[in-house]
């Protein structure tokens, strides 16, 4: 099955800083998603990005499918960005997705 590795496991930054989170996959995936889990436990889908680059405000993501990794960029961090960021991948859009263990991001004011 698919193995998902995320790095770094923990990241502490000052407000306003930029960050890059990485996700490596053991196998090629056709379904790749990034999620943010806020401190109250709610999972919010950020991007569906099996390949290419997408941007949404201060967040952007890039997936290099041929090399089986994806990057999530957060610019000008705000305290509300704190939480755990997960990537997840699956073989198809209609199948289960396998989550990584997450990157815990803490933004200090």
């Amino acid at each position, binding site marked *: 099955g698919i193995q998902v590795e995320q790095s770094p496991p923990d990241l502490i930054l000052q407000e306003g800083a930029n960050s890059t989170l990485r996700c490596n996959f053991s196998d090629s995936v056709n379904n790749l998603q990034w999620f943010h889990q806020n401190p109250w436990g709610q999972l*919010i889908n950020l991007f569906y990005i099996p390949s290419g680059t997408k941007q949404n405000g201060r967040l952007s993501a890039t997936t290099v499918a041929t090399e089986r990794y994806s990057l999530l960029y957060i610019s000008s961090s705000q305290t509300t960005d704190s939480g755990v960021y997960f990537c997840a991948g699956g073989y198809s859009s*209609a199948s*289960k997705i396998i989550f990584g263990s997450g990157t815990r991001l803490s933004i200090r004011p």
Partner: protein
Amino acid sequence: GAGVSQSPRYKVAKRGQDVALRCDPISGHVSLFWYQQALGQGPEFLTYFQNEAQLDKSGLPSDRFFAERPEGSVSTLKIQRTQQEDSAVYLCASSPWADTDTQYFGPGTRLTVL
């Protein structure tokens, strides 16, 4: 519109009790997923429905776990004879189509087995 809702939000059970966790997906969503999230870990897949059909139950950890979605909307995850290792947050997600991309998650049910 309303998102995915789950009830109860918190459940405390004594070891050996049966529990039932409910998921109300976004109206009209075809696909429904259940995940289990242990403390400090990422969610782990349990089972997947497309309408009322359970297409994948490979993640259910034992035969004590059972899920149903009889009318293709509301789903129930039932755990029989709960054990302490069943303590976790149980998350439900839905998506609009069978071949869609984005999964929309509910707030989860935190189950504690004493």
